[in-house]
């Protein structure tokens, strides 16, 4: 099964779904299939990824084919079908940050964490992602860790910053 395969990669145990919470999220968005993208965003905020059972439940409740939900989950870059690490490190590779050396920060982080962009460390501590522009172009290169933005980063400082995250 395509989604079960995904969790085998990280060895992480799939999330325990509380269907009443899902019901609340669905109700907040009025059970409207047009709000599907925002619903999936809410689910990902809760579980840190999109667990397959949650998607199946939404498919049934909103009468949307699972294939369509899969299409949305794989089209839009923010969604992850695999469990992600506790801390999401998001390197901005926008043009302004690129011109100021963001690629070097990415290489340095990949080396330091031992994973590539899009992957999660074995201990589930960090997931490394890339994003094309978070809008802090004047203060590039920028790196987001969870919801905090670090400006004017360089490879030197990265290791020090990561130490603060468990």
């Amino acid at each position: 099964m395509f989604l079960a395969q995904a969790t085998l990669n990280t060895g992480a145990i799939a999330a325990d779904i509380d269907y009443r919470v899902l019901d609340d999220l669905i109700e907040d968005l009025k059970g409207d299939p047009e709000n599907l993208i925002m619903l999936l965003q809410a689910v990902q905020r809760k579980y840190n990824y999109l667990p397959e059972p949650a998607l199946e439940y939404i498919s049934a409740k909103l009468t949307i084919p699972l294939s369509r939900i899969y299409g949305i989950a794989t089209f839009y870059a923010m969604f992850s079908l695999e469990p992600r690490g506790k801390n999401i490190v998001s390197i901005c590779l926008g043009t302004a940050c690129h011109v100021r050396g963001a690629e070097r920060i990415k290489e340095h982080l990949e080396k330091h964490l031992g994973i590539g962009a899009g992957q999660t460390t074995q201990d589930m501590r960090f997931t490394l992602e890339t994003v094309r522009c978070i809008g802090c172009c004047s203060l590039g290169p920028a790196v987001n860790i969870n919801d905090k933005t670090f400006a004017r980063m360089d490879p030197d400082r990265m290791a020090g910053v990561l130490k603060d995250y468990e």
Partner: protein
Amino acid sequence: MRIKSREDLLAVGKKALDQLYNPPVLKMNIGMASCGIAAGARASREKALRLSESEGFIVSDAGCIGFCEQEPLIDMLSPGMPRVMFKQVTEDRLEDVLEAYRAGRFDHKSVLGRMKHPESIIGEVVGLTPGASQSNGGIPELESIPFYSKQYKIALRNCGYMDPASIDQYIARGGYFGLFECLGEKDPGRIIDIVTASGLRGRGGGGFPTGRKWATARHAPGEPKNIICNADEGDPGAYMDRSVLEGDPHSVLEGMVIGAYAVGASQGFIYVRNEYPLAVVRLVGAIKQAERYGLLGDNIIGSGFNFHIKISTGAGAFVCGESTALMRSLEGRVGRPRAKYIHTVEKGYHNLPSVLNNVETWANVPAVIMKGAEWYASFGTEKSKGTKVFSLVGKIKNTGLVEVPMGTPLREIIYDVGGGILKNRKFKAVQTGGPSGGCLPESLMDIPVDYERLSAAGSMMGSGGMIVMDQDTCMVDVARYFLQFLEEESCGQCVPCREGIKQLLRILTDICAGKGKDGDIELLEELALTVNGLSLCALGGTASNPVMSTLRYFRDEYVSHIYDKKCRAGVCKGLFSYAINPDKCTGCRLCAIKCPNEAVGGEKKKPHSIDQDKCIQCRICYESCKFDAVEIK
């Protein structure tokens, strides 16, 4: 309370005037937009709040005033004192800066300038002005410093000058008076005439005449009609819209209500990219406030006109900035564009008439209404009227958001406003228009910013991203970078885009890796024409622009990569090496200490050298050397 008359509105505005311009005690306005926060403003704010408990001054938030390089920015005003903007006020410097302000000590190291004109261009029209002028203090005016002196703020008129979470302050700066003017207009067609006469063109990049778009929607059959705000701002390097949404969300709401009334729409959407969480927070708050005052929702200002706005978030897809894809996304579907022989203005969201405009376009609308079409058209060139906001970023000294009249030459923006190249290195190119745009060299720096002129030169205005590149930027790598971006973001529907971009990228990647061959340039040119000419939507339709413009103006770099296997900018690994010039090296050992691989050797105070076997080309030595002794070979 619901606002029902212009008098009600004026009363709300008058009450908030003192908050804005004449607080009873010292007031600190802290720039709390995303750039300010990234620079440390949150910590400064927390400290300010702690201090204010015992010292009794007012702490308030403000949006981004544009000079992001100098964030955190804090402006202070106090009865009888000049109003001063301080720069780089991180938490550790806050107390000293506060004390200095109180003592009347204005040190140029911490002062950016005295805010001489905090008033609003619309506020003046309705009689809501600061009143008493403040003292001078002998401090240079903020508006006269090089970064600001050539700017004129229309879209950014309120950003940094008010608390974005306060609708009262927005009203005190002339906000929502435009809405009253328009909803009192019996013939909505007249509103469209004003917008058309102003010459306002879409600021998202398309540059389509806004009035004409509205007129088509007004006459298109189908109900309900829709007003959509494109806040997807996907161009990397551009963040103008983010600033407007975080600093002045009401300007967008007001613009949308005016547009809705003009066109006959009853539902509105703001599609915000999910990478802008603070913008979403501000918008949600602003919508609630406007609804509470009766300026949005049912029976707006008692006129019987209904218009509701819903916020929808993007989920990380650049292509959803394209109008047809955006509307698919609004419908909860995958964002795949469709062919536009029938325009979205006639059949858009759910195949209904939909007016989609960019954030900056909407933000201009209230100003156009209140100051008049003639006033707006007095700025700019013959075909490009008004002002444009640019995000001036990259290898430039004064990075930030700048709003200049159309027609300002690129040279002035980069050298006068931008202060020239970082570290005084040599200018090489300026990239405008995002992945759909192109790179312009030094020889074209006198081009005025104007839709037609930029397109003729091989670039385009785009949404406003203006990325400055210097001698250390490899133009082949820039083309490769944009294609890599577009390959990831392509929706995959049509062959020219899906397959064409992939092949263009493959050739460029090979060239950057030293595997370029004879015939590659000709192949790139041929492919580029196919991709641009035959793709379904504008993503593919402009995908070749970075390649074509760099081939046009920087062909020698391609030749150098392919035939000499050399990257003279020192970017493409393996195609250059770093070497220390013995005539310039002082033996200070800074590079040796910083080198992560211990590749730099030599005796103290004597010229050093780089061991090429150990060098990983990370560039740290090149960036750290204070004597320009590390050279690219």
